[in-house]
Structure formats: C-alpha cells, structure tokens
C-alpha cells in the first residue's frame, strides 16, 4: 500500500487561489495525476475555498485554511479545514439545473459541482473546526 500526504496552508484571501493553482500543477507532476483531473480538483477546491473565505468568518481577522491531500493507492482525499462558523455545505439545497434561462440562478452551483465531480463528499465539525473531505478515485 502506497500512502502520500501533502499539506497547504492558506490565509482567507481570494488571492490564494493562485497559490492553489500552482500547488496543484506541482502535485500533478509529483503524484502523476493527469492534467484534466488536476483541472477538476482545482475547480472543486476553488468552489469550497471561496465559500469558506466568503461566508465562514464574521470578523476581519486573518484565518488559516488548511488543505490536506492524501493519496492512498488510487484514492485521493482532499480535506479542507477552517475555524469559521460551523457550516455543512453538503446540506445545501441543490439547484434546479433544468429551469429555463430566465429562471436560472448560479446560487448553489459551486457545491453542486463539487458533489458531481467528486466520488464522495463528507462534512465533519470537530474541535471547533469545519472539515470538508472530498474523495476521488484516480485512474491508475
């Protein structure tokens, strides 16, 4: 059994999306993950990260958001950990993607994309921290 782990510590700023992009490009090379999969991971991490930055904190202080990448054999787990308000995004109402254009809204689309593009999404609240775990099976 092969186990790999990498950690990324970010501050609660949208500009950190650039750090995430660069980190994922390097992760793709280091863990031999195909570029289209890296794009998918970038998307789901951006959606989760922007939700946390936008809604988790009531104060103006700097907070650390940690992302832990675990690869065990061909299962990749991405855990996003923050100390903001308890919020379970997996309980979000799903958008109605069949509505005509005039009635469509993009609200809720981010979490819907995460659930659709990952194989499993799990939320925990532990020791005053939100933990969102997103898992995907990689093609070997």
């Amino acid at each position, binding site marked *: 059994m092969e186990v790999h782990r990498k950690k990324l510590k970010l501050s609660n700023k949208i500009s950190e999306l650039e750090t995430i992009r660069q980190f994922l490009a390097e992760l793709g090379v280091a863990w031999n993950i195909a570029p289209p999969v890296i794009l998918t991971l970038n998307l789901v991490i951006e959606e989760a990260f922007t939700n946390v930055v936008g809604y988790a904190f009531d104060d103006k202080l700097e907070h650390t958001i940690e992302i832990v990448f675990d690869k065990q054999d061909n299962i990749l787990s991405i855990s996003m950990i923050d100390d903001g308000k308890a919020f379970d995004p997996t309980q979000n109402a799903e958008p109605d993607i069949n509505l005509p*254009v005039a009635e469509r809204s993009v609200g809720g689309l981010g979490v819907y994309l995460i659930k659709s593009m990952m194989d499993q999404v799990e939320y925990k609240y532990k020791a005053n921290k939100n933990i969102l775990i997103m898992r995907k099976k990689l093609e070997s």
Partner: protein
Amino acid sequence: MNIQVTNRDNFTVVSIHGRIDTINAENFNTHLMHILDNEGVDHLVLDCAGLDYISSSGLRIFLVAQKKISAVQGKLLLSNLQPTIKEIFDISGFSTIFSIFPDTEAAIKSK
C-alpha cells in the same frame, strides 16, 4: 485571462484566453457587460478555444450574458469548448441553455 474582440458578419466575436476564476471573473464581467450594455451588442459569439478553466464565478457571467441577450431576442452562441469545459457546462445544465457549436464558423452560419 484576456479577450480579443472581432466582428464577423453581424456578430461580435469575443475570443477568451486563459482562466476565468474568482480572482478575475469581475474583470471578465466588466469587459463583457461593456460590450452588451454600452455597445448594445445583441449578436455575440463567445469563442472558448483558449478558455482553459472556468469556475462557478465565470459560469455566473455567462448566465447573465445569456439572460440579457435573451431579453432582447438576440443571439449568444458559444464555440470551441474544450472537453473539460464542456463537461462543466454539461454538469451545470448549461449545455441546454446555451447554443454550443464546434467552431465559430459553424456558429455564425447557424443564423
């Protein structure tokens, strides 16, 4: 992200290059809304050949453009979506609310 604007027949063609994420979505929005609101364009092709990445922040802008153009009975056509981008459109249900063509030529001829 950068865009190039050209005119073909009676369509304005906006070619998008790079990534549309939460960092630069507002910049893309400003450019596109200027074209729609200030220049009054209602026949638009968004050529996505160079679009490498889009998140829900960018999808939101595509949706706003579609709403505006539908409201004036204009036409918004998308061309050259890369497979990963097309997949995101499919999952979001956007493939049914946009007219998507394999290339810009086909989009313009469809009128």
